[in-house]
């Protein structure tokens, strides 16, 4: 490779710490969190009703699911890029690690849900299904499902499994982050030693992640309706989590690339690759979501179809229509274009659409489970809690994530891909 025309490989900037702008994002995120928390409090006190607290908790559950998908989805993507290797994963590694280290905050967000489990979950509220059936609180199908699923759906089990999930994810996140810091300064062992270590941990980790995530999605969201079940639910949740975490990490990386050190080393090639990965997630998500719909629609069985009827009829059609547009139609058509994937501002806009879609979809999954609103989507002051509470929680999450991002250099060194991304873009020879 001739360098006589000045096409030298770039040098790694001397200072790899997070740029000063990250502190500004933290302040902005905290401000957003504060504003929405005040709005939520105002909504709670100004429109008191029987359901005020319920709606705050439902909004809280939605916020938990969104922040949880950023933190644990970040861990899963981190494992995927350790297992697959490739240049595309190097510059998103530190942002993914920062996202994964927010797990303690997500655990704190989980506690109110676990404490108020009786207010949120029908199966927890009904201690005696027989009596509740006679009293007319629940119908026969619900009574049967709650009694039959009692060995799994009970409050002790909910707590034990929840804590076990967090302990398992926390262990993987702790080891991955610890090794990553050791690797940066390690001079004794070669690259391959670390690569193999990360690969072995992540391979097992991804398997355990998919099992624990399936359990968590059933416990926290699917069991809101104790009568319904779908075997693809865990996978649908897993793909949605990857979708959300990928959109979030691309936004973080694009924002970081406005300043040094990423400004000079984040190349269009890797950005293009990340855009293509987004496209793959957009396709996979609609593929699985539509499979579930098609199978249940074809079967047309009364115990399954009702879940969709609750979510399509009575005004919910508009919500699922918007969900479809933002989840698939818009990102799919936009990401078809090569130019959009290679343009920073446009790719960031697509990622914002994808994140908005995740909020909308989580709302669509959670809200129609409750008897006061299923089949009958209507506006009420309480409904705004589905915006205020998750927005406040996400603001807090972003602030904590930026705090974690500042703890370490934003580029992982001591990696064989580092020299590859420092090459000029047209030197594939």
């Amino acid at each position: 490779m001739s360098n006589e025309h000045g096409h030298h490989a770039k040098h790694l900037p001397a200072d790899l710490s997070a740029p000063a702008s990250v502190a500004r994002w933290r302040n902005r995120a905290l401000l957003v969190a504060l504003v929405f928390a005040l709005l939520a409090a105002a909504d709670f006190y100004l429109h008191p009703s029987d359901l005020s607290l319920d709606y705050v908790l439902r909004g809280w559950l939605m916020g938990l699911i969104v922040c949880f998908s950023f933190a644990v989805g970040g861990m899963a993507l981190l494992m995927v890029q350790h297992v697959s290797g490739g240049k595309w994963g190097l510059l998103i590694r530190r942002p993914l690690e920062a996202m994964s280290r927010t797990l303690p905050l997500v655990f704190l967000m989980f506690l109110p849900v676990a404490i108020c489990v009786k207010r949120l979950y029908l199966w927890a509220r009904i201690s005696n299904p027989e009596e509740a059936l006679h009293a007319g609180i629940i119908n026969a199908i619900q009574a049967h499902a709650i009694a039959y699923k009692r060995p799994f759906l009970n409050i002790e089990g909910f707590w034990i499994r929840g804590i076990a999930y967090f302990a398992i994810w926390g262990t993987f996140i702790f080891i991955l982050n610890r090794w990553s810091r050791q690797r940066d300064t390690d001079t004794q062992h070669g690259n391959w030693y670390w690569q193999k270590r990360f690969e072995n941990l992540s391979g097992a980790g991804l398997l355990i992640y998919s099992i624990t995530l399936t359990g968590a999605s059933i416990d926290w969201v699917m069991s809101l309706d104790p009568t319904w079940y779908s075997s693809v639910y865990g996978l649908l949740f897993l793909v949605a989590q990857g979708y959300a975490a990928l959109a979030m990490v691309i936004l973080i990386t694009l924002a970081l690339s406005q300043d040094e050190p990423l400004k000079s080393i984040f190349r269009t090639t890797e950005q293009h690759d990340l855009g293509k990965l987004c496209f793959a997630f957009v396709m996979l998500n609609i593929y699985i979501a539509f499979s579930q719909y098609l199978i249940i629609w074809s079967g047309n069985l009364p115990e399954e179809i009702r879940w969709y009827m609750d979510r399509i009829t009575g005004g919910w059609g508009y919500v699922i229509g918007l969900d479809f547009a933002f989840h698939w139609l818009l990102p799919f058509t936009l990401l078809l274009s090569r130019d959009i994937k290679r343009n920073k501002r446009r790719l960031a806009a697509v990622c914002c659409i994808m994140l908005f879609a995740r909020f909308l979809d989580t709302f669509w999954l959670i809200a129609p489970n409750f008897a006061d609103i299923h089949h009958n989507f209507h506006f009420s002051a309480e409904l705004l809690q589905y915006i205020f509470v998750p927005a406040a929680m996400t603001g807090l999450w972003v602030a904590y994530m930026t705090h974690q991002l500042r703890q370490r250099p934003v580029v992982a060194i001591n990696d064989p891909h580092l020299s590859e991304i420092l090459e000029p873009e047209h030197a594939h020879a």
Partner: protein
Amino acid sequence: MPMREGIYGLIAEFDTPTELVQAAKAAYASGYRRMDCYTPYPLEEAAEAIGFDEPTEKGVARICLLGGLIGGCAMFSLESWVSIWAYPLNIAGRPLFSWPAFIVPAYEWTILFAGLSAAYGMLALNRLPAPYHPVFNAPNFRDGATTDKFFLCLEAADPKFSVSESRAFLESFRPVSVVEVDH
């Protein structure tokens, strides 16, 4: 076939991809359009250098999109026609126009038609298969183009082309050689 006047173009030989891309970019910037790069392996930057990214050059993308749309619409229409008019059967009491069931084959046809039209569209726009191409008349091209040499050919059909000026232009990039290519 009547004999064509003049030459097909001038071909410059380079040792490295970087030199080729630089020369190609400069040629594009100074107004040449009828030109092509020849490399032993795919070199994305060479395509970009000669204006592959320009809107007028996105033929394959358009053909692929059009093919996909035609495939999807064709299959969806076929299924609708079969189910509503040709063989209206009552299946488990569902409406005749049961669109969710039509999506999967329509999707498969979208992929199939998009893939085939991208492949054949690419071949057609490249005028392939081509049993004869003038650049093979350059002896150094025959030896190097598939092994380790990088070529830039400015074609005589370009309005800016002139044998003496274009040769001087190419030689300013210090290529290994600049050869006239016969038709």
